[in-house]
């Protein structure tokens, strides 16, 4: 629940923290900030145009919140966009332009991972939808043979960095849309876990899970970079 501290395993947290601290050098973050602000000479536009300089994007939910997302995860998505494993009319050309210089992706991922940004004010969601979403997120559904989302995405969707992204506070529209891309087979990255789950969910389930995670705020100390 918002405000509560999620329990973490000491050694695990220590190691992940260590790995992140190792990979995100201050100079790397600074270089990434420049890319976010003004794009690259290789033709990538500034990330901030859609994702905002602080990584919260905008309230339309057309673009995901990426502030504080794990650097490993962000970099992997960019590489997948560049290689075509994951496709998007918007992101594919941008990622390809970024990938023309080998450090760009790591730099910009490190920058956005380093941010601790506020949440935008949004209209209150439908409480019934949130309740259904919370059930799927925390317990799952025996009838549909769907396990709880939190199993992998961490308590209250806090993320299990480096590989698994946070969902807490992510825009409902983006979660709903992304699950649908797995369900229809459009999204080809991580199909072994996400496509299987998404295909067991109906439209109402997608909307419910999305509505639930959008309003979760978490404790802020989970998955946050060093």
């Amino acid at each position: 629940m918002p405000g509560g501290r999620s329990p973490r395993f000491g050694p695990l947290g220590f190691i992940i923290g260590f790995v992140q601290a190792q990979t995100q050098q201050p100079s790397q973050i600074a270089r990434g900030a420049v890319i976010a602000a003004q794009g690259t000479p290789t033709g990538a536009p500034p990330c901030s145009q859609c994702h905002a300089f602080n990584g919260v994007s905008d309230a339309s939910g057309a673009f995901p919140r990426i502030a504080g997302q794990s650097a490993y995860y962000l970099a992997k998505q960019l590489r997948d966009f560049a290689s075509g494993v994951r496709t998007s009319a918007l992101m594919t050309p941008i990622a390809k332009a970024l990938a023309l210089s080998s450090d760009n992706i790591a730099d910009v991922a490190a920058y956005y991972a380093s941010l601790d940004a506020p949440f935008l004010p949004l209209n209150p969601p439908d409480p019934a939808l949130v309740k259904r979403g919370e059930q799927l997120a925390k317990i799952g559904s025996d009838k549909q043979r769907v396990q709880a989302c939190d199993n992998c995405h961490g308590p209250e969707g806090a993320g299990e960095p480096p590989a698994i992204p946070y969902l807490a506070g992510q825009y409902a529209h983006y979660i709903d849309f992304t699950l649908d891309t797995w369900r229809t087979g459009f999204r080809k990255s991580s199909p072994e876990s996400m496509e299987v789950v998404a295909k067991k969910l109906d439209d109402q389930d997608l909307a419910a899970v999305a509505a639930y995670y959008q309003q979760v705020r978490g404790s802020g100390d989970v998955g946050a970079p060093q």
Partner: protein
Amino acid sequence: MATLLKPVDVVTIGVGLTGSLAALELGQAGLKVVGLERGSGRETVPDFQSPPIHDELRFAIRKAFMQDNAKVAVTFRNASDQTALPIRRWESFLPGQGPGGSFVHWNGQSFRAQVADFIWRTHTIQRYGQKFLDSCGPELTIQDWGVTYDDMEPYYARFENLCGVSGKAGNIKGQIQPGGNPLEAPRSGEYPNPPQKEPHFGAIFRKGAESLGYHPYPQPSSNLSRAYTNPLGIKMETCIFCGFCERFACPHYAKASPQTIILPVLLQDPNYELPALCEVLRINLDSTRKKATGVTYVDDTGQEFEQPTELVLITAFPLNNVRTLLLSGIGEPYDPKTGNGVVGRNYSYQTTGGPTIFMDESINVNPFMASGACGTMIDDFSGDNFDHSNLGFIGGQYVGAIMTNGRPIEFHPTPTGTPTWGLEWKQAVARHYNHTILVQQHGTSASSRLNYLDLDPMYKDAWGQPLLRMTFDFPENDIRMSQYIADKVVEIGRAMGGKQIIRGGTKRPYSVTFYQSTHNAGGAIMGDDPKTSAVNQYLQCWNVPNVFSLGASAFPQNITYNYSITIGALTLWALDAIKNKYLKSPGPLVHS
């Protein structure tokens, strides 16, 4: 006074791996089956979901899924001249409780036995001579099973398909396959799924073992490498390497267990009934003592019921199979003084315990990123895969980097000489946590006339019935075997680049105070002679033909490997005989 219930066709005593499989097969054959299970119901959703299922204190330390030993314990002693005491905290082995049994909290390590395992006595005498076997220990009582690997092969394949075992075949119909285990028994086909990904610790082991000329291969796993639909139409998912297999239950529908591979279909069967919280007290026999009439059990309110039935299948944890036979007066109890009697005879265990290998701190092992069966291993020292002529022992062990977890309470590798508490201990744990590889040695346990199970003369359970008494110590043969292999594994550890190695190997006396293995075997063993076996080759009681005792209690001695897949195969083998032979003409399937 017991309430008399309406008769049914079949009762299973226990609803774990063997009980759910038996109910499924016999329900599909049109029989009315009741499963009597002492634990309460549990399902993947909601009972196995995270974060609660990852409560290490509750499940791994306090052992929430295990048999309630405040009600029914097992007493233990090393030798028959000692007084046995009840095991009040499960440590050495962990019998499960509740639907799914121990097949819920297992690691998913999914092996077949070898050709020679089923004919161990005959094979040993043929290869090395009777004198050699006698010299390994006059107390050894190893026996042939009464079935062969060839008999079992189709059942292995069927059970592996049910579980969705993920592995790489090394020998298909005699053709050696690259990437698999060249020393395995011939398989009729590939595994249903490819092997799980190899973690870093496995890759390091592979390199070290290969440099010494051994034959590393990916451990076959019932934690699935990809989404899979089993032959019953039940969908399973991909394992995510969360590191909480053994002692826990899988939140992801990714580990084979009755809940993920059998129960969703079985529980839809209108012929099947699974009343909760039923403690079976005994099987009732008629006045001839040669026919079971039913089963008496107590529910959680203390009310007693008598369930009449045509056929009783004892499908409990192996130790409880033996106890049920003893409490019901089925078969002659084993007498260690004379060697006569069969029930309780040839109880065997498993030799375990490998080295801890401390690597350079530049090598990150990430032990927490694991499934229960994602190891890399070799079979060069398994069973009779190496020449024993001049070694003075029989049997062997597999060796492998099989790290199942890096859980914070249980995983604290520290080098020899580290204090066991305090600041220096903490510093050593922090220093070595991510740079330490555990290598397993896991192998045979020869049966001995000194090791057996009987009813304890003093201690009773919550219902006033005698506890099972275990009398066990490793035969010297097994110690020599394990210590010989321990030296070889130290060499592998050095080849892996180990900076410091704590040598492994089994020692005497056997102790129940630290975890070794939940592969308790024997006590109601199978065979072709009623003088030396409790059940025939179809796991049918010799003297009471409408009672079958299914599971590892039938193993005449224990094999090199984790035994669940062999239990599944053996159960399917017995069920085929029940369906195709026994039901057509109830009576003894083998005449003594």
